[in-house]
């Protein structure tokens, strides 16, 4: 764990400026096995210190790959010089950032460092299970991984913090061939917040997931292409989470709003049916701890939930301290950095559409001709709200019943148009948290939601 060598430097922060000083350690462990071959067996530890200085809207940042008082002094000086360079060369005339209520936040429990053998042995046993119980696969790819961010933050006015956020997963990707010999895949993961040794005390969840993925892949390899066009669909919770994050969440990040996103013209306007409420949760959602809880951000702002859409109306943006001042909103802890050498950017935390009252079975039985889309490989969205998700698992719905499995396809639409077609909302939220959000820097995020009935463009073949 990082020791606090930074607090004593607070008196040396530049006068007339806002300064953040952050020490950070990122740890990652990764073991990859492909059809029984151990192709990756790696450990990474990256640590250092960074400083950011904000003066009249000009910002300077510096980092060094060393965690020591000398390195901290050096980055404080370099960040101040960079802020001065920007002030003289690019001009700066913005007001000072409003002061935050001070405080301290410590979330440092639960950070073990399991030996690499733990990951390798776990995968070997899981691989043996898959080889025995999942016949006919062209390939089986298994990953055991953990990453964690430990941060020690000192600010002149905000919350000084020492936090650790570990997460660990077991991921599986199975490949089989269609009757025509074309490879098709099914990917899934098990895990969440916590170190690998705590999250994987038994094989039960992984074996269950392997069985589920295999069963789905066997249906998918004999699957059909979706018919292209505008269709009524049920989006499963994973797909809704992707929609919440990619298609809506990014457009209401204040830096992208300032860059001209569609949300710039839609604040306090209807953007969804009144069944839709969307929140970026900080650390607790629907009475439970979030998949990846955030308690304080990297500007020293204590983290709070941000309601983005309420009953279909767009009512908020996610901000850092500077953009909150610009929009007259309250910062809520969305400024997050990935490595010690990264500056805080406006990022989501745990973004989810709120559950409704509908049962999934009733939603499926309400559709004569459509699709139930349950999983996504990836997704991208535009600042216009136009989005695209890969659909890696889904089924036809014919006369209110699930039909044949689908081969890979894609759905697309414009978020604020598509959300207005939502007319049923499921009563159960499903979260995912194993991936990274990409925006200059990667960032672990949680995304979730209930099943939604809506209309969306599907790619077909």
């Amino acid at each position, binding site marked *: 764990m990082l020791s606090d060598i930074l607090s004593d430097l607070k008196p040396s922060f530049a006068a007339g400026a806002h300064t953040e000083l952050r020490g950070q350690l990122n740890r990652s462990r990764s073991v990859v096995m492909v059809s029984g071959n*151990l192709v990756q067996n790696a450990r990474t530890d990256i640590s250092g210190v960074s400083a950011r200085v904000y003066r009249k809207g000009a910002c300077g*940042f510096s980092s060094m790959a060393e965690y020591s008082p000398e390195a901290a002094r050096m980055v404080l000086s370099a960040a101040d010089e960079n802020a001065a360079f920007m002030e003289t060369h690019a001009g700066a005339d913005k007001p000072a950032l409003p002061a935050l209520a001070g405080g301290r936040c410590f979330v440092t429990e639960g950070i073990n460092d399991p030996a690499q053998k733990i990951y*390798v*042995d776990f995968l070997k046993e899981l691989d043996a299970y898959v080889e025995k119980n999942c016949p006919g696969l062209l390939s089986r790819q298994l990953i055991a991984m953990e990453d964690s961010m430990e941060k020690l933050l000192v600010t002149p006015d905000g919350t000084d913090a020492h936090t650790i956020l570990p997460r660990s997963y077991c991921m599986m990707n199975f490949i089989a061939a269609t009757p025509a010999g*074309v490879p098709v895949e099914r990917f899934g993961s098990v895990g969440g917040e916590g170190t690998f040794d705590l999250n994987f005390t038994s094989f039960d969840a992984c074996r269950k997931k392997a069985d589920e993925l295999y069963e789905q892949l066997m249906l998918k390899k004999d699957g059909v292409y979706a018919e292209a066009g505008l269709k009524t669909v049920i989006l499963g919770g994973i797909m809704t989470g992707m929609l919440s994050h990619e298609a809506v969440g990014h457009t209401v990040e204040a830096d992208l709003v300032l860059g001209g996103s569609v949300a710039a013209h839609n604040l306090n306007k209807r953007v969804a049916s009144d069944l839709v409420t969307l929140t970026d949760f900080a650390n607790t959602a629907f009475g439970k701890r979030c998949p990846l809880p955030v308690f304080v951000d990297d500007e020293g702002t204590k983290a709070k939930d941000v309601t983005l859409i309420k009953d279909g109306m767009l009512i908020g943006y996610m901000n850092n301290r500077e953009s909150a001042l610009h929009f007259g909103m309250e910062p809520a802890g969305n400024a997050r950095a990935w490595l010690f050498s990264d500056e805080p950017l406006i990022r989501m935390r745990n973004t989810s559409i709120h559950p409704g009252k509908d049962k999934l079975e009733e939603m499926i039985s309400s559709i004569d001709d459509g699709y139930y889309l349950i999983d996504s490989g990836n997704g991208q969205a*535009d*600042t*216009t709200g136009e989005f695209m998700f890969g659909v890696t698992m889904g089924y036809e719905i014919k006369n209110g019943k699930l039909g044949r499995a689908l081969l890979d*396809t894609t759905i697309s639409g*414009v978020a604020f148009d598509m959300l207005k077609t939502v007319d049923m909302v499921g009563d159960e939220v499903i979260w995912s948290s194993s991936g990274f959000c990409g925006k200059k820097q990667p960032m672990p995020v949680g995304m979730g939601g209930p099943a939604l009935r809506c209309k969306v463009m599907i790619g077909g073949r």
Partner: protein
Amino acid sequence: MDRLTAIASLILDEAKKQGADAAQCRVSESEKKEFNVDGGRFSLMRTLFDRSVSVTVLRDKRKGSVRINRFDDDAVKAAVGDCLAACESAQPDDAWEFCAEACDEHFTDGAPECDTEALFMRTKELLKDVSARHPKIMLEQVICDHNGVKCVYMNSYGVKYTTHGGSYNISLMYSAHEGEKGTSFYGTEVSLKTLDKPLIDCALIEREFTQIEAQLGAGPLEGKFTGTVLLAPMASLEIVVGTVLSNFVSDLSLIDATSIWKDKLNAQVADERFTLAITPHAPYVVSGSEYTGEGYPAKDFELIENGVLKSFQLSQYGANKTKGVRAGSDSWEISITPGEKTLDEMIKGIEKGVLVMRFSGGQPSAGGEFSGVAKNSFLIENGRLAGALSETMISGSVPEMLTHIRDIGSEVLCNGSMSVPYISFDGVTISGK
């Protein structure tokens, strides 16, 4: 460089002392200067002092890897110990191998030193040029940086490479706006050896600004048809080249035999006008790969020549696993041989299709089937651009597209790491609302 060499030597000595059969390491330090522009105004200047130590060891045919960013002796020795501990748990595999031909090479690449003042002035000039010449363009984010790197690679067989390199890197993300109308965002990245000309004149940057401005007022396509897709270089890279390199010729796809080209070496897999090479030493590559991840010197090679698959892109590990041949390089510095038609001439030859500047789609399947949104695209009808499109999807099969090439253009995107022309393909499904 002496300090980095001393650390690398310490790692190899320590690995031997702790019982490794073989070891390799890469020790580097870098300094990055970076200017950020957000929403059209300068927002941040960064200076990053970074370090990296990567260690890989083999013992009893077992492999372990560790990466840290500390240079002190205790941390380095601990990293070697962790690496060997990782080996302990791994399974033995005869295929792991490092380059064993001793050498001592030094490379100076790109632009090792940064002219910070010039980098700022070129960035500022870009903002002015965009404002004056493309007033509808809103620069959501501009990142202009210089990254200077010193690096030492050494392995226990006497292979040593030292590199002092660097590059200026320009990354733009922008869209066009007029009132409440806005286009999809577009992004481009360019690496440069020098700052001898305005940034707007580099690569295809100004042409792309003009094309994005023409996207204002885009509307959806009605219906669905099978037609010609004319891919801009970045879209070709994403859909075609990315699929070929990841799904058809990579270690992973060949080791687990999911590559549909696994039995196609020396067979025709593409139109005979199509030649795709990996070219880390091409003159337009700013800071190319000098050696592979296993320590072999990197060499240019042709992956597909006149449509014939000439090589896979196997590492020595992949080659040992599949009884294949190690490729010249494991990098993605790409060159596709250009054709003779300009973009306008290519469009004139198309009866019905779309020009796609950017593709936003799901990962193509192992077999190369893909579908996704044709971003920043234009309808082509009767040999002319017939309006900008939104919400238009394209879907097809990369191996089929490669055998249905209509034209390869003469104009290429040369962005410091690749040289790729416009390419048009027949038989792709294009669907709108």
